[in-house]
């Protein structure tokens, strides 16, 4: 059996693979199967809408051309596109979205990540990340203003002197005060990260910042 074709094909090839899949894949799938997967529309909340409207006011012409009016529907569209840019440009290879319960990470970034935070279509495939050249981004929303992000994407070294992050001038129509559709979508996506948490970031608890 251990040296026969059938043994190797069925036991090692298929059997052990399926066993591992059941243990490592099917168990968590079954454990979490009852939790609904949220769509981008369901993910839009007051905080990210507030940021989205801020983008519309700050860059009116650019925003008009890219999304028209700042509606919730358009915000969901921006989140989807923003996530695709985030994946396609490889942002997630240098920025994790996952705060670990060790190594003082909850003091640096914010609350430790919980499983339910990832039950949505924007985490398909999940963006835990593999490497942190730059900081974790899962609690980045609301930490910095939209203008900061625009300048930072245009040329990170303008606001962060020694940053090794590449420049992304193709998110703009020529200058950092003219983010295009891709730039606006990515900034919306970044501002959404962590916006679902009850108490984060701390200064957002002011009513006017929360958009209430």
């Amino acid at each position: 059996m251990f040296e026969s074709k059938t043994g190797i094909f069925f036991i090692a090839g298929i059997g052990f693979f399926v066993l591992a899949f059941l243990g490592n894949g099917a168990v968590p799938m079954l454990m979490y199967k009852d939790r609904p997967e949220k769509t981008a529309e369901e993910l839009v909340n007051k905080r990210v809408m507030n940021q989205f409207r801020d983008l519309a006011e700050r860059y009116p012409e650019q925003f008009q051309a890219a999304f028209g009016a700042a509606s919730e529907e358009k915000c969901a569209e921006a989140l989807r596109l923003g996530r695709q840019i985030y994946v396609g440009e490889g942002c997630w290879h240098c920025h994790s979205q996952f705060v670990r319960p060790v190594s003082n990470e909850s003091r640096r970034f914010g609350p430790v990540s919980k499983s339910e935070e990832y039950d949505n279509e924007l985490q398909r495939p999940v963006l835990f990340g593999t490497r942190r050249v730059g900081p974790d981004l899962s609690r980045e929303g609301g930490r910095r203003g939209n203008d900061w992000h625009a300048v930072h994407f245009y040329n990170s070294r303008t606001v962060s002197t020694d940053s090794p992050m590449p420049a992304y001038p193709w998110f703009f129509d020529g200058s950092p005060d003219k983010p295009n559709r891709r730039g606006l979508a990515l900034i919306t996506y970044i501002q959404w990260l962590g916006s679902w948490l009850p108490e984060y970031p701390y200064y957002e608890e002011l009513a006017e910042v929360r958009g209430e």
Partner: protein
Amino acid sequence: MSQSRNQPSARAVPADLVDEKIVIAYYMAALTFITISMLAGLLVALQLVRWNPFNGAELLSPGRWRMIHTNAIAYGFLANAFLGTLHWAVPRLTFHKVASKALSWFIFYAWQVIVLATAAGIVIGPTLQDQPWVMELAKQTHLPMGLGAQGLEWGETPFWIDPVALLGLLLVAVNFMVPIGRSKGPMYVTLWYFMAAFVWTFLTYAMGNLLPEYAVAGTSAGAIGGLFIHDLVGLFVTPLGWGLMYYFVPILLKKPIWSHGLSLVGFWGLAFFYPLQGIHHFLYTPIPMFLQYGAVISTIAVELVVATVVINFFGTLGSKGYDQFVNNLPIRYFYTGMVFYFITCFQCALQVTLTFQKLIHFTDWVVGHAHLVMFGVFSLWLFGIMIYLFPRLLGRPWYSQKLLTYHYWLSAGGLFVMFLDLTLAGVFQGWYWASLQPWDASTNGSTPFWIVRVFAGLAMFGGLLCFLYNLWMTAKGAESVDESPALAAAAT
């Protein structure tokens, strides 16, 4: 060497058993892609030390080329070099030709199209991303996918290529399973690994590219993603690599493998324990803790299995092996790779523990580990195999043995420096982060290590250039520059 040149056993080999042209074609493709991959790696390395001359150029964005770097190595270099070598080894081991020569060439071209389409999708996809029809498609299907890369390490292959790649892998399996099925009598250990690898690669690719994209989201998708990247190394690259070692090492040493029993332990231990470890890539995530513990334990278990395999190969090398190690160049590559493999696996048994993970997860330590296994082990093995096979495929000795040794030292030396450098950098980064200094402290503190890494990478690239020039001169038929061609030929 010439006696055993075409004879894995005493039985006569029909002249057209091996299609040598396709082996050469695969090797050419593989060498092209490793050149591209190394240039991409260089670009990213330069970006990290802020010396990237193309910063701000959209189609040369380091974020996109980082994915070219990893995909070109896995699917461009390793897969092509493995497929080429399989076309040499499988017919010789089974005494049967592959299922169909036409199918072989179809797979060859299809695979190059798949790799190039992947590269094109990664580089150009994000540029086309905000086209209205792409957005509409994504919205209608509720699939947040783009034309460009998917958000899965090594599964970045854009979603529209996945079905084609799967079909290709199925055809590869059929093409090689037919001769294996036709062969009579007990199978040699190499064929166990190959057979299992054909099944595993197809299943792994299907699981990793389809489930997290279409079926599950969130934490459970993370578990599947971990399983995918792990199985891709463990169930595609590793069994093909070890299978080839079991084939080429006895041929080059002209003696059988030391222990048949140990090779059984190695194969079945790998088959059982390797796939159970996927979740160890995501320790301390919200994935249930008992699953994380299971992955840690099976990882430590597989290192014991690895030890038996390495012992078996050093037993085969034997007490007089040092001469072979020094003078027989492919053997030197193979055994250097095995030493690196042992280091990798020993390191793995340590770094998989929660204690190490606390410090080194997300750091350059992991990057060093990945380079050690993909380049230090499997790429060195494949270069060793190429060094053995090219004189047989081209019908003439290498142009220069000296350039081959340059390639060896620059590749193995450069890689080892890079590995040590990145491992140390990882420890520094882990402590910078835990100490809660501003983030800049970790990137500035990493810069000296990243500079060393640029030069280590340049050494490896220089080694590759030596190899390519040497191959070019050999293929051109240039007169060998070795002082004693007879000796040089014997050493190959």
